[in-house]
């Protein structure tokens, strides 16, 4: 049986390595977080989809190509997510969940675990001066750069 492993979460399927294995098949997942477009609150979302919050836990989430270890109440800076400020989103790519008594390891994702989050701010990162110079060739170039960022606040880590 062929099993696909070593795939990068952010890249397309073209860069997947194939090795002979016979464990579980790879799960496919989208690259963007689920946007809670129906404007229901965190609690309503939990009851509607029969989720329960996991108390005193941390999770490793994957957001736009980067991974973060988060707990409830954290504010993290990610690449720009094109969602309005104040909106509620659900991060569905959870790679690891740790509680006081157990650790859930995802291969690559932990099933039925999601993380609530809110968009706090849509700022730019700190300005970077890019200065290029070649000696004895009369070449100097100065430009600047500011990346687009998003601050998100982490809510409950929930499980089905």
């Amino acid at each position, binding site marked *: 049986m062929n099993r696909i*492993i*070593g*795939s*990068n*979460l952010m890249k397309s399927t073209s860069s997947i390595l194939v*090795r*002979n*294995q*016979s*464990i*579980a098949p*790879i799960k496919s997942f989208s690259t963007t977080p689920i946007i809670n477009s129906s404007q229901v609150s965190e609690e309503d979302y939990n009851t509607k989809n029969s989720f329960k919050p996991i108390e005193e836990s*941390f999770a*490793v989430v994957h957001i736009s190509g980067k*991974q*973060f*270890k988060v707990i409830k109440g954290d504010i993290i800076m990610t690449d720009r997510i094109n969602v309005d400020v104040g909106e509620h989103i659900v991060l569905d790519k959870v*790679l*690891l969940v*740790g509680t006081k008594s157990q*650790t859930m*390891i*995802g*291969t*690559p994702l932990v099933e039925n675990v999601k993380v609530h989050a809110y968009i706090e701010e849509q700022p730019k990162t700190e300005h*970077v*001066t*890019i*200065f*290029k*110079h070649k000696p004895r060739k009369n070449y*100097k170039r*100065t430009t600047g750069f500011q990346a687009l960022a998003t601050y998100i606040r982490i809510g409950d880590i929930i499980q089905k």
Partner: protein
Amino acid sequence: MNIDKIFKLAKGFYGRSKNCKSLARERVEKGLEYNYVSRKLKKRDFRQFWIQRINAGSRIHGLTYNDFSRGLTASDVQINRKILSELAVSEPYSFKSLVDHSKNILSHLHKNTYSPKEI
């Protein structure tokens, strides 16, 4: 860059480099060149640093970094080195469970490969 910006960046430099136009320009431009290179180096250096930490953490439980990451790759655990090193430092129990998971996977693998044992 105009001279005001140069002097702003030259604050705290040694000797005449902080208040002499031509010297300040030289020093600031050299500094910005180093900045440019360091932004590239930062990615390399941090990766090395994370690997050292993961290695130290997994050796406590009797696995080398090499074997540990082989076990994780074989079971398709895609947690990156940044997070693994963070777990090694701040979440010893979770890190131990990852090492145990890796050990378990390794016992089903053929020698130093990613392929399962021949039956």
